[in-house]
């Protein structure tokens, strides 16, 4: 795993070892499910993400929005919590972002998180052209697929320079199609 990925994972700490940070306005938390992609990289039985501007309930609504935008049923909640963490950081550093998120959450109403997927899709379709939804969509796509949990879930192996590339680690291991003739391919360099 990359060093920077480990930094991301530091945010997903075991609750028991969680340090008290200065201002905590909300908390997203859940169990690390045995056999899940998160369990392969998490250090404890519980994950937690602190929020410093959004409340727990607001965070839960945004998590439900992220999961409706990019639903992957077997992808851990923690991966979606990272999206909320990034949104929370934006809301903390920028008043306009904070107002936009709070307004968007209010518009969706308290029942959003608990409604069926169909209900959530309908609710989001109604606000699809809003800045709130467009920002949510972009942030979800930017953060969700960049996390080590997602790398593991999708089987993506990421950078390979530190491991000598894929030259001897499967760049040409596909066997379910005919091989390429030598004149259209090239020799292995080593």
């Amino acid at each position, binding site marked *: 795993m990359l060093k920077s990925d480990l930094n991301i994972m530091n945010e997903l700490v075991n609750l028991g070892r969680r340090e008290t940070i200065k201002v905590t306005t909300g908390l997203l938390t859940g169990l690390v499910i045995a056999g899940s992609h998160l369990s392969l990289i998490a250090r404890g039985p519980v994950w937690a993400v602190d929020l410093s501007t959004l409340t727990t309930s607001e965070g839960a609504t945004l998590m439900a929005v992220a999961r409706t935008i990019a639903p992957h049923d077997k992808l851990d909640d923690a991966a979606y919590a990272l999206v909320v963490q990034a949104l929370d950081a934006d809301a903390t550093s920028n008043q306009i972002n904070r107002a936009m998120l709070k307004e968007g959450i209010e518009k969706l109403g308290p029942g959003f998180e608990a409604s069926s997927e169909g209900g959530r899709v309908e609710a989001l379709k109604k606000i699809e052209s809003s800045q709130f939804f467009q920002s949510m969509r972009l942030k979800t796509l930017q953060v969700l697929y960049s996390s080590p949990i997602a790398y593991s879930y999708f089987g993506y192996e990421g950078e390979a320079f530190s491991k000598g590339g894929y030259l001897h680690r499967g760049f040409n291991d596909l066997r379910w199609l005919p091989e390429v003739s030598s004149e*259209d391919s090239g020799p292995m360099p080593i």
Partner: protein
Amino acid sequence: MSSIDFHDSGAVVIIGSGAGGGTLAHELTRRGVKVVLLEAGKRQSTETFSQIPGEAFAQLTWLEARTQSGNWGVARDFPTLPVWHCKTVGGTTVHWTASTPRLQPWELRAKTTYGEIAGASLIDWPIRYDELLKYYEIAEKRLGVTRRNGVPGLPASNNFKVMYAGAKKLGYKQVHTGHMAINSRPADGRGFCIQQGFCVQGCKMGAKWSTLYTDIPRAEATGNLDLRAESTATRIEHGTNGLVNAVVYRDAQGKEQRQKARIVCVAGNAVETARLLLLSDSAKFPQGLGNSSGQIGRNYCHQITGFVWGIFDKPVYSWRGATLAGVIEDEVINEPKRGFVGGYRMELVTLDLPTFPLVGLPYGWGRDFSSIIEGYRNMAGMFINGEDLPRAANRITLNPNVKDAFGLPAANVHVDEHSNDQAMRKHAQGQMSKMYDAIGANRIVLGPTPPATHNLCTARMSADPREGVTNRWGQTHDIKNLFVSDGSALTTPGSANPTLTIVALALRQAEYISQEMKAGRV
């Protein structure tokens, strides 16, 4: 490495250090010419290239504010990023994917070959093919292009095996791992390709050619180069005689500096090259510098692109291996029976996981959208690189409502696709879909046109000064000591990825400039 005085009026000032500017700087300095090379971005190295896709994008990309308009898909899908090029020493040769085909002879005679086409502003190149060929051959040796001069091709990756099998089913003949400026074996003091993918994040092996670690350090070694990174040119000045004589720029501290110049060569990528010339208007040149024709910024071409993804039963792991090492060249023909003029290549491509949902897929969200990403492991990819038609109204202009960090108007990129462009993309995506279908894809997904990486023709070479900005040497028709040295000078785009042509033209231009300097004509 040398330090050239701000008041030294004998130097050549080159703006931009990519394929055009970096090559030109080396070629002039090795001939004994003093060069100040201004580069807006920072200097990175194989050690400092980030391997985190989002971070690498921010490290290398030109991200100043831009606007766009027109009916092309990029305006809808990527409103804040019309074009994707670099802002770093080495320019776009740092993130390019190193495909280096040649233009075809008939592509240089676009107007003659395609005839008069309504809604297009086609002209022929003012250069004969054999003149260009000579420099292609030199450029291919310098870049170590595979499948030329006895350099072996790159070995086939999984993603290429899928492309190859599909192409053969459709009867295509010219299918191989490409002419690539990526070392298939150690050469030029650089390492070989270890198939790491991550070409776009900067090649940490240095196997992929870039001016960052070839021409620029070699130019520095001559003692004639003064490279100034983090230096953004804001204006080119001229004297009462109508010749350019200085470049004004902001240094790393944001302080305004003025470098005197004997000759100025602009190579800032087609959007910024046009913008800088437009920003340099004056009482004598009210439409912008070198713009008596009104052609600067017009005829903007970006080559037709568009992804096709095939999702299969079994894994492909498309991210393993050189990103673009595969091509089908059979459609690089002019066959109007297909419903359009001009040719296209089909090229291997993939995107890393974080980038794929953002750039590789059409706008979307929800179950159907995410189900495509579920197939990422089993997905193969290709895209089209085809010739788009120049149009006078497809152009770079200054947007007075949006300013950069220095308070200068940002560039607006306007593109209305010609129906020929749309017909070509449709044909190509149809062929690529047929290929994946022929070998049993479960699902085929057509992707959008990504932000343009091949930015061309905004100061095009023309025989007639009314039809372009520069002559056959990339020298502006209006001002003899002002040159354009990047893709802006291409007359038409053709269907070849442009870097090899940009390098060949820079090699040729360097010879011309040094001859003209010796003869005292510039």
